[in-house]
Every structure is written in C-alpha cells, then in structure tokens.
C-alpha cells in the first residue's frame, strides 16, 4: 500500500478505517411496529411482546456499554446522532457495519421470529443506512428457518447497503449442518459473507458442562462455541458446496485460533474417511474462507507474545478491525490493541474488510 495513504504517526489509513462491527440498538417494539404487517403489529400489542435484549448482552452489564457510551435516557446506540458522535466520528470511521443484536431470531415460533427479523432489517435500512452514508448493514435471519431466511436474504440483498448476513453463534444445530445450506447458498449468490456474532438462541446450555453460574462464564464460553461452529462449517463441507463463501467471526477473540487450526488438521488426518469430501486440510480451509474481528482480542497482552501468535497464525489477512461499539472493550479511542504491530494496520483497518465484504468496494466510490 502506498505510504502516502497511511498516516505516519498511527499507521491508520488516511482514507479512514472500516469498522466491521457496531451495534445500533432497537429501543423498543414501538420502533419496529411501522415495519410489521397488520397481523404481527396487533400480536405484539395484544401479547405485550417487548424487551428482546439478549441475555448475553443484558443492558445493565458493564460489558454491554462503556459508561461514557450510555446516554442519560434510553439504550446505548438507540439514536443515530449518538452513534455518529460516539461510534463513528472519534475513530475516523469511513464505513461501519451495523450488527443489531436485538433477539428477533430467538422466539421458538418460526413465523414470529421471521416477521421480527424482516421488520428489524427494514428498520435498519430506513432509519440508519439511508440517512447515514457511512453505515452499512447485516441482514439478520433466523438460522433455524433456512428457507424463509434465504428468501429474506434475497429480498434485502436488493439494497446495496446490506453487505453481509448476520447469524448468532448459539444455534439449535451447528451452522455447518446441511439444513442450513439454503442460507449459505443465498449468501454466496449475492456475494455476502456469513458473519457470526457472539450470543444467540440459548437453545442449549452455553457449555457442554451445563448452565454456568455467572454471565462472565457465558461470555467465556463463546470462544469454544465459535470453535464448534468452525469445525462444523469445515467438516460438513460448506466451503466445498460454496467455494466462494466467506465467514466472519465477530467477538470471538483471536488467541485460540492457531492452536485450533493445528488440532483440527491433526484430527482430520486420522479421520479423513469420515468426511471424504474435505480434500484440503482444515487450517488451509480456515485461512482461505474465515476472517475475524480483533475486538475483543483475547490474545497475548505484550507485543513480543503477539508476534509469536501472529507467526503461529501465518494469516494476517484474516484480521479485521472493529470497535464492537458500544461494548466495553477498550478505553478512550484506543480501539486497536497496542500490542498489534503497526505493519498490520493498513490491511487490518481497510484492505482485509474490502476483500471480505465485496459490496463495501462498490459503494465506496
């Protein structure tokens, strides 16, 4: 990358960073009501359905919002003016991808979940993407209704401001399982990466050892859940069926990734015949098809350790910049963990995102 495109002091791209993970908030069901059809509008009112904040991201938890990101009234990220002022302007953000985390995919009744997802996608397009040129959006769908989800992806993909598909990390079945293929197919045909964010349906205990005592444990469990999702995507041959598909892990942490790749390759070499469609070792599949945000990092706290981890990873192209705004991950404007070497910054803050989310390139011009 040309040196005059990069700020000499920080190494940040002068053209502005691309933030692949921010969280505008649905303030309440009233905000979605205009986007629901008559039946569902009435159902939500008659039944008093509201407050779909996820357990993992319960608003009162410190991790859910840094104190200075909490407005005097209402939820952090519920207003566009606040997101502009607190999430975009301070970081020199050129583009940010909105990943709303309201639990619209969670209700057990499929049609209700689908109706709420549609409404939230329309709300995002109308009230966030349209008025703010720096914002892009993820299409939110319920993975447990793959055919309806695929139709929703087809519908929303007509709007070029949607640049990805958003799925939860905690699912009924791991995302590689064949039932989910319509979603993967829809994402691939529109050139949209599948992005997976920590949190989700809670259909199963977050850990294989049962239901933990503390919110902190549910958060700790997310990294292992992501690893299970990756094993499923690789072993079930999602990338064999969909060779141009990319998957992005959001809020997964980084530190576990190299050893995960070593272990998956080791295991696969002895068990190849169980998944004979897989002809590439899992580490190579992950390097080719998977990307992840560096917020939270959950990696070595020191620069020297970070260099070792990066050598183990041998895939700088996988790393994507994100603030995870308004989640409390860093202080001030220090969104980039200081132990990351500055040579990564141009690709981290811009190039890798453009390569992973092709639609960002189209709409940047």
């Amino acid at each position, binding site marked *: 990358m040309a040196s005059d495109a990069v700020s000499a002091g920080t190494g940040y791209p002068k053209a502005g960073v691309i933030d692949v993970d921010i969280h505008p908030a649905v303030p309440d069901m009233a905000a979605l009501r205009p986007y629901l059809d008559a039946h569902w509008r009435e159902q939500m009112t008659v039944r008093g359905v509201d407050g779909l904040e996820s357990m993992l991201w319960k608003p009162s*938890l*410190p991790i859910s919002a840094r104190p200075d990101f909490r407005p005097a009234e209402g939820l952090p990220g519920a207003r566009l003016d606040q997101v502009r002022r607190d999430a975009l302007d301070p970081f020199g953000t050129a583009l940010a991808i909105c990943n709303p985390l309201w639990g619209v995919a969670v209700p057990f009744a499929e049609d209700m979940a689908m109706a709420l997802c549609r409404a939230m996608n329309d709300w995002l397009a109308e009230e966030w993407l349209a008025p703010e040129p720096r914002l892009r959006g993820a299409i939110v769908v319920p993975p447990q209704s793959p055919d309806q989800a695929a139709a929703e992806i087809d519908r929303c993909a007509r709007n070029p401001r949607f640049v990805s598909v958003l799925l939860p*990390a*905690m*699912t009924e*079945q*791991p*995302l*590689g*399982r064949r039932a989910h293929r319509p979603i993967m197919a829809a994402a691939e045909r529109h050139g949209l990466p599948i992005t997976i964010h920590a949190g*989700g349906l*809670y*259909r*199963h*205990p*977050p*850990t*294989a*050892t*049962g*239901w*933990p*005592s*503390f919110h*902190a*444990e549910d*958060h*700790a*469990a*997310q*990294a*292992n*859940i992501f*690893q*299970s999702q990756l*094993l499923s995507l690789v*072993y*079930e041959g999602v990338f064999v069926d969909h060779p141009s598909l990319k998957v992005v892990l959001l809020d997964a*942490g980084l*530190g*576990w990734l*190299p*050893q*995960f790749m*070593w*272990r*998956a*390759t*080791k*295991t696969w070499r002895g*068990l190849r015949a169980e*998944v004979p469609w897989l002809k590439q070792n899992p580490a190579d599949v992950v390097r080719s098809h998977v990307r992840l945000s560096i917020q939270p*990092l*959950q*990696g*070595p*706290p020191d620069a020297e350790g970070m260099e*070792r981890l990066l*050598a*183990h990873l041998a895939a700088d192209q996988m790393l994507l910049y994100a603030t995870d705004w308004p989640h409390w991950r860093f202080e001030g404007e220090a969104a980039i963990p200081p132990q990351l070497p500055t040579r990564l910054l141009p690709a981290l803050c811009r190039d890798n995102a453009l390569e992973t989310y092709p639609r960002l390139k189209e709409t940047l011009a």
Partner: protein
Amino acid sequence: MTVDVDPRTALSAASKVRLVDCDIHPIIRHKGDLKPYLSREWQGYHDTYGDFLVSPFATAHPYPKPTPALSRLDTWPPSGGPPGSDLAFMRDQHLDPHDIEFGVLQVLWPTAARHRNLGYGAALCRAINDWQKAEWLGREKRLRGSVMVTQEDPEAAVAEIARCARQGGFAQVMVVPRNIEPMGRRRYWPIFAAAEAHDITLGCHVGGLNGYAVTGGAGHCSFYAEEKDSNGFAMEAMLTSMIFEGVFEAFPKLRLVAIEAGLGWVPALGWRLDELWQRFRDELPAVRRPPSETLRERLWYTTQPADEPEDPKHLRDVFDWIGWDRICFASDYPHWDSDDPRYALPIAMSRAEHRAIFRDNALGVYRLS
C-alpha cells in the same frame, strides 16, 4: 527464549530419564470381572440393569469411535480380551520398552462417574477401585490408581475418597467435566475438600455423558471428528467454572491435573479469562487474582493429544506461555490417538526441560515415590 540444543542431545538425555506416564487406561476383560468386587445386593443389579447412562444406546455410542475399543490396532493382547486388559502385555508393549517409572491408571470403562442410578454408581466405583488395587496396583508396583467417584453424589464420593486414601496406592481422584452442572459449583465442593484433606491430586480426565450438546451452545454436531475435539472445550468450561467460583481460593492446597485435553488451548484461556475478569469483577467476588495466574500456578496439564504445529518449533512458544513446570507427559495408552514419548514432542529441549516434562513435574504433582 531460544534454546540451542541439538535434538540428538535431547534424545540421548531422554534415554537416561525414566518416564512418568500420567494416562494409562486399564480395562476389565469380561463384563463379569467386577462382580466379585460388588456387594451381593448389587451383583444381581449388575447383571440385570447394569450401566444406566445418559445415552440412547445400551452399550454403543451415537458418535461411533474410529476404531474398536477406541484403541490402537496393535494393542489387542494375544491372550484375548480388549486392549488394556492384560497386565503382562501392557508391560511388554508399553511399560518396559519406554522404561516407565510410574504410570497413572485412569479407568474410563466401565464408566462410573455418570451413572444415573447413584446407588449403583457408588457400588460400581467401590468395585472398580478394589479391582484396581487387587489386579493392577498389587501386581505391578510401577502403577498408581485413580479413585473413581460418583460426581453427582458428593457424599458418596467423599466416603470413597476417604476409604481409598486409607488404603494407599492411588495417585488421584478422577473426575470428568461433563457433569449435570459446571464443576465449580458448590454442590461438588465436598469432593475438592476431601481431595485436599487427604492430600490426593484431582485428576480431571476428558469425558462424561450428560445429554447436553458436546459443543455447548452450538447444538448437536454430526461427526466423531467434531465430538473428539469438543473434549477440550468441556475442559475449558470446567476450569473456567472452578476458577470463577473460587475453588482454588477455597482449597489452597488442591492440586489439579487436566488430562487428555492436550494443552495448546491453555494460553488462550488465560488471556480470555483475564480480559473477562477485568470486566466482570463485581460478579466474581471469589476471584482475587488474574485467572491466568491460577492456570499457571495451581494446575498441571498432560501433553496428549500432542499439538502438531505446522512449524514444530512453535510448540516451544506454547510451552513458554504455559510454564515448563506445568506440563506432564501422558501416552493415553492404548487409545488410537496415543502419543509415543520418543516422537510426540519433536522439539529441541534442554536436559532440564526434558526431565521436567517427562518425569519431574508428574512426580511432584502426584507425590509419587
């Protein structure tokens, strides 16, 4: 830290170091072998009702194993019986050629820890422990046993720990991560108290059957390949629970070995838990120091299945992060993915490092002599 050691020096050093193998799996030859060790009231139950586990099958596995008896093909004893059932063959094939000074037995089958009928589970644990004593520890002085306990019945577990501690010969109490609740929760604390009081190490071996998805929050996976690698995830969840609930503060003398989960995940768990502890401090009043320090100073980890980095030298980085004093070699004999001590860790090591990993760390944590 770089160490300029000629691998040939490390190998010749190896030949002078007797080995401690922290994970060897003995097994009964026939279903009826435990009957003599069961009280009469349970002998009939054993025949009629037998193992009642959380499983759709009476004996098979919904994630079928990759090999019969989960074992290496060359470990079936010529005398008949499954791999690990013949002490003489185990000596010939494993204990003697590797010059094993001590081996820690871990009994996976019959599985005792997760019986749905707690009365039978307790009786079976007693029988398995007596069988170990009579047929393994009593005949081969290099071997040490595991006290098998019913984790879901801590009162019975405490009684069994006391009984076996009085007899001696047991290096550890064996528990598995996949309980009904995460291991750090209060109801399991009597087990830790007993282990600490009797100065017996707690050995946490991967496994268990609780009916939850082995992936945790992602749901039920399809393949054995996925289920196998999920063992490490359950271990991480168990350790997270124990750390966050303050088990290591409540039991300052408790020693814990994480067994058969490999160890490459340990540094990342420390980084992750440290970050989360910072943000959730007031939810976790029992945690008084960074979790990574607890991982570094209160736990040990066995090597198997050995990590195989693309560049073998990277394994040294992992060992540096974990601590060379925390790592204990294990073979997992006779299982299919067991490690040969000569070839499983292909990195240059100093004499001191080699001794630590292949012998001294295990001697220390298990109080072997």
